């Protein structure tokens, strides 16, 4: 008779919200994962090692992620899921193991993590900024505030495959932070939006979105000092860019093109 698995080891369960993984597909069809791990609240030994494992059926890839206090996610192509051709049924595990006198003991784990689609996730996070092709002359993109339902991100229809261009990491990295900054300033200075309570209002939804990033406070509605707003908007945009690893995404493309 099969034995029942007993966990009397004190192994900690890492919450799903603290181990988020997304997967993106590059222009050549290769999959790459991004892991967002928050392990600081689990009271784990500082030298405990972190591993991320991707698995499906009989295939598994394992990635060393540094230790608890100094995570070192693999860089660039080292995060490629070369053993997997699609995201279908792909799952992840995060393991924290001891490195001290008894190495290899499982200290904490998150299992059966379903990765999100990196690009879709990004789209979900900015549902407030639909993309629309338009003839912009020699401009490539522009934020359009004319509609009552909120801003549109206009992209040059003269780009042959504007949809694909808008989906590239380079475009997202260069355009979205700048567009976000422009929209937040517009809300503050032109629309004079001063709350986040009315979800029917596109401005409130944008402020909610901007303040939802890690480390971002509420907008300084009580302040008329543009310096305060400048600080807050910079924080919100920086958090957004950091969360989506905008620089890493751009560097991978630029390094491939130039280097």
């Amino acid at each position, binding site marked *: 008779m*099969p*034995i029942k*698995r*007993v*966990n009397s*080891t004190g*192994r900690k369960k890492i919450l799903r919200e603290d181990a988020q993984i997304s997967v993106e597909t590059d222009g*050549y*069809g*290769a999959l790459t994962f991004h892991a967002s791990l928050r392990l600081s609240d689990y009271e784990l030994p500082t030298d405990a090692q972190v*591993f991320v*494992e991707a*698995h499906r*059926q*009989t*295939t*598994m890839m*394992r990635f060393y992620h540094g230790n608890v206090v100094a995570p070192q996610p693999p860089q660039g192509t080292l995060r490629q899921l*070369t053993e*997997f*051709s*699609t995201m*279908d049924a792909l799952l992840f595990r995060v*393991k924290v*193991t001891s490195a001290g006198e008894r*190495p*290899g*003991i*499982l200290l904490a784990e998150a299992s059966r993590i379903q990765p999100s689609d990196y690009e879709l996730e990004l789209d979900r996070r900015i549902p407030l900024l639909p993309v629309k092709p338009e003839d912009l002359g020699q401009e490539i993109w522009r934020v359009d505030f004319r509609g009552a339902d909120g801003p549109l991100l206009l992209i040059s229809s003269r780009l042959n495959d504007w949809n694909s261009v808008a989906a590239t990491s380079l475009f997202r990295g260069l355009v979205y932070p700048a567009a976000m900054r422009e929209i937040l300033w517009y809300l503050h200075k032109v629309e004079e939006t001063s709350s986040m309570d009315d979800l029917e209002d596109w401005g409130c939804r944008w402020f909610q979105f901007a303040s939802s990033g890690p480390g971002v406070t509420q907008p300084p509605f009580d302040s008329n000092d543009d310096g305060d707003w400048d600080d807050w908007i910079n924080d919100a945009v920086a958090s957004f860019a950091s969360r989506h690893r905008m620089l890493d995404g751009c560097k991978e493309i630029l390094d491939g093109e130039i280097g």
Partner: protein
Amino acid sequence: MKLARLNNEGLHKFELFLDSLAINGALNSPKDLLSAADTIVNVSGDVEIEDRKFASRFEAARYLHDVLPESAEYDILRDIGLWSWLTLFFFDQVCLLDGNGLRKVGERARYIPATDYQKYYRHLLAGPYRVLRAHRDDPKRALILLCGPLHKPGEIVEQLVARQEIITNPHAVALATRLYYDPDSGTFRRGAAGKGGGSARRLADMLRQFDVTWDLYSMESAGLRDLLPAEFDRFRGVIDVLGGTSGKPA
């Protein structure tokens, strides 16, 4: 013959044949489905499949691994039509004639790959291919899973391949091969199958329990072996003698 995949029509006819074979074991396999225009889809590239005889799952897996196309964009293991075509091509080896000229057909997943997680590994050609691919850096470590005949993987394979934490772990698979594979006979050691103490079934249970406490992927097979209780001593002793590794005495 040029490699192809069965299309929906081809799969349907192949399934009808399997249903009929269950009733009448004397039926000939419908080889015409392998090349008929209305039952196949061509596979890109000119891959020729030879009508070879395979002495073991290992031989079949190695041959298929050598000839089948692979790429980052295409997961061949999810190509049901291709594996079904291969099954039909090698049907005489995956479904043997008995002494009376009759075939006993097994469960459907042995001939047409199943997509559900409980049966996906049971396909008689994709199964060994899958194991070899997972251990392609050192396929011989997986001999315990590949030493059997093509038509009859055996209970040990079922016990070990069904457990993802084992089949994906090179150290666990190496340990199983060292415990239960007899290099002299080229097959399983006596007592490896079944439910007795130290059997492969017990190993699978033990590793599953260890997996709660240990990060098994970071442990060498000798370390895993040293965790095993006394019931494994009769197999572990063979390792100690043959391999000269340290561990509990036989």
